[in-house]
């Protein structure tokens, strides 16, 4: 015979179900929004690209006559209404076919596949580098506010935000490739090629994470439950890492997700300086060449990466803080 659940257990179970349903609805809402944002981004970028110049003229090059350009428009279907071109493209893109690059005359998916690894390696190593240095520095700055550690962390933050990435990259190249020939200045042939780009890209992301960690830690360290923990006689290390950092680091996770998206999509300058043929560099060069299919595909991939990372951060926040689900 099955025992009847106690009233208290039933209430807990109902509450748990409500929380599960709420989370599901919240997830579906965010997913729907993500899909809409993706479509809007792709449609807007498709339209904006037409303002950068006539793709047929760009494909034709210097020697192309008007007749050649008209012929190119016909061959590539550029003489059709823009919305037809867009619908045709998005339909194929959903099936994984991004078309042929006007410039390379190769499938866009093949070109992107060759570029993704370098961007992924650079993005992942840079975010790891940024987290490894910025979180401890942020914690130390929060433990001893206005001390020399805090001032040094602040100085590094300001430097990181103020210093142009390309300049830092070139300075590292001058020092570590020309003066002390220890590291190669450009390329992607081995791990050593990623050391300098990782430092430059990671350093750019460090200030935001470091300042957020510091602010979060200072707020948490001043809270009642930390005071209670101290009063209970817990070890300082335990208070700091088990109780304080776990709470302070929640917004850092969200920001890191966005920073990671930036590192994957926004590393154009770094990729250019260090001649890393990644996705950012491909996007930049393709815009200059009016290589529409490639630009469209790269924008879509970047948009999806950003949206997925933001979605994950939203869901994480929603899971951690039920108040967010309601709003």
């Amino acid at each position, binding site marked *: 015979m099955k025992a009847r659940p106690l009233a208290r257990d039933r209430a807990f179970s109902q509450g748990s179900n409500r929380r599960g349903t709420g989370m599901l609805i919240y997830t579906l809402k965010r997913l729907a929004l993500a899909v809409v944002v993706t479509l809007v981004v792709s449609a807007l970028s498709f339209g904006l690209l037409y303002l950068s110049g*006539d793709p047929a003229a760009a494909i034709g090059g210097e020697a192309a006559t008007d007749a050649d350009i008209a012929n190119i428009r016909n061959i590539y279907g550029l003489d059709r209404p823009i919305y037809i071109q867009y619908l045709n493209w998005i339909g194929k893109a959903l099936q994984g076919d991004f078309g042929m690059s006007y410039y390379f005359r190769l499938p866009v998916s093949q*070109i992107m596949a060759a570029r993704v690894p370098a961007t992924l390696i650079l993005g992942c190593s840079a975010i790891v580098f940024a987290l490894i240095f910025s979180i401890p520095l942020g914690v130390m700055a929060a433990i001893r506010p206005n001390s020399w550690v805090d001032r040094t962390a602040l100085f590094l933050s300001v430097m990181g935000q103020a210093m142009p990435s390309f300049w830092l990259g070139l300075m590292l190249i001058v020092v570590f490739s020309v003066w002390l020939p220890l590291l190669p200045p450009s390329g992607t042939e081995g791990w050593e090629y990623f050391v300098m780009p990782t430092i430059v890209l990671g350093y750019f992301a460090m200030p935001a994470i470091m300042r957020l960690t510091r602010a979060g830690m200072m707020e948490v360290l001043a809270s009642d439950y930390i005071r209670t923990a101290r009063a209970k006689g817990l070890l300082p290390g335990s208070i700091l890492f088990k109780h304080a950092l776990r709470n302070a680091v929640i917004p850092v996770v969200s920001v890191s997700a966005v920073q990671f998206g930036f590192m994957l999509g926004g590393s154009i300058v770094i990729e*250019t300086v260090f001649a890393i043929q990644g996705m950012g560099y491909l996007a930049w060069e393709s815009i200059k060449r009016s290589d529409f299919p490639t630009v469209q595909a790269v924008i879509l991939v970047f948009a999806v990466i950003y949206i997925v990372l933001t979605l994950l951060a939203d869901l994480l926040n929603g899971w951690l803080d039920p108040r967010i689900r309601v709003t």
Partner: protein
Amino acid sequence: MSRKFSLFWMIVLFALILTASPAGAGKANDTLNILHEIELSSVDNYFNTDRWGVVLCHLLWDSLLYRDLKTGEYKPNLATSWKFVDSKTMEFDLRQGVNFHNGDEFDADDVVYTLNWVSDPKNGVKTQNNVNWIEKCEKLGKYKVRLKTKRNFPAAAEYIAGVMAIYPHKYYAKVGPEGMATKPVGTGPYKGVEVVPGKSITLAKNENYFAAGPKGKPSIGKLHIRFISEVNTQIAELMSGRADWIWRVPQDQAEKMAKMPKITVETADTMRVFFLHFDAANKKGRNSPVNKLKVRQAIGHAIDKATIQKTLVKGASRIIHSACYPSQFGCTDDVVKYEYDPAKAKKLLAEAGYPNGFEIDFYGWRNRPEMEAVMGYLNTVGIKAKIQYLTYAAVREKIRVGEVDMAHNNWGSFSIHDASAFTGNFFGGTTDDNARDPDVIKWLEIADTSVDPEVRKKNYSSALQRVAEQAYCIPLWSSNMNYAYTKDLNFSAQPDEIPRFFNSSWK
């Protein structure tokens, strides 16, 4: 403890750096490491409009003829002799005993297939201007072909010698442009080893290259070409010894690099001519000030070309007065010259009805500092030029439809040493012609199609004189090219922007 920990990781990192794969030094492993700033769209010679495409054309393939830069003569290459049968027909006797890199024997079938295929518009060759004059090519024997042109085309030999690579017909029929782009096969002094699209191209010496050809046997074992867009990174690569050869080095950087002990800096003039391009014909009826002759002449007198060339362009570039490059057949410098005279410029502007000057949009797409210098000089005579710096495709489209009153234009003539490639292109009634002068169009039609050299010269001269008198364009200067390379290399730069690595060697 933590200090020991940090020290440990520093030692590990340093050890890893020291054990990292070393860069391949050029001379030591007989590999010339070359850097170029633009990713090549396709290695297939007929499907790119890049400068590096022209360079590769001479490395990987051969044409029927070869232009001797020193004498200007066309020498036999894959052809052993050639002649004009009539004004529209040429016949070529072909070289025997030549093999493609894949072992296929070269003969008339390859010439016939290549020239007929590339000149067929439906195959979508990108460099239409280079091939659209071909009517057809016929086989007369295993080593003899006849080439017919659609019209009288006296510059045919120049085009054939320049960019008309001959492909192995069986291979090309099988792999097409995509296959040729990734696994190029030709008869040239270098053969393709590896092509990584958008990244690098590796070539190896063709040990079986025919010695009797005008290019001569190559000396350097391997050419490794990488694409790096950032010039500062290129310079760092050269200084660190990982690269052996770069070009298009900015003048200020070149002057500093020239003082370095391990680097040679060489400066050469190029065929690329910069000029102010006016909408003299008032194509769209917008009634711009530059529709008036005196305004265009005033602009010509307002710019101190010599000072800009001496202080900004520098190097081996030269002042240009005529709408062509001096070494091109038919080009003459015997035209009206617009000397720097700001007082005269102001007087002409006043006579044209603009005593206080005017405002004008100034379009451009290359060498912005030079544009700004021109803008400064125009400003001193009252012309407020507002720079519109766009992409090449956007500017050209606007020029063609008559939406650009004044542009800072430039043209490299595809290294074709014939005025038809410049004067004919901009003033021969083409879509790029913003002068639309019927007399000029008539003279150029005769000059571009006559087979009599004297008739051609006379008509080019008439056209160029009129273009200068009417200031349809104001030629400025030729572009300067700086090369920087390791002292270990024997290299000689040429004005046609085609580095001949098959003539280079290690010291």
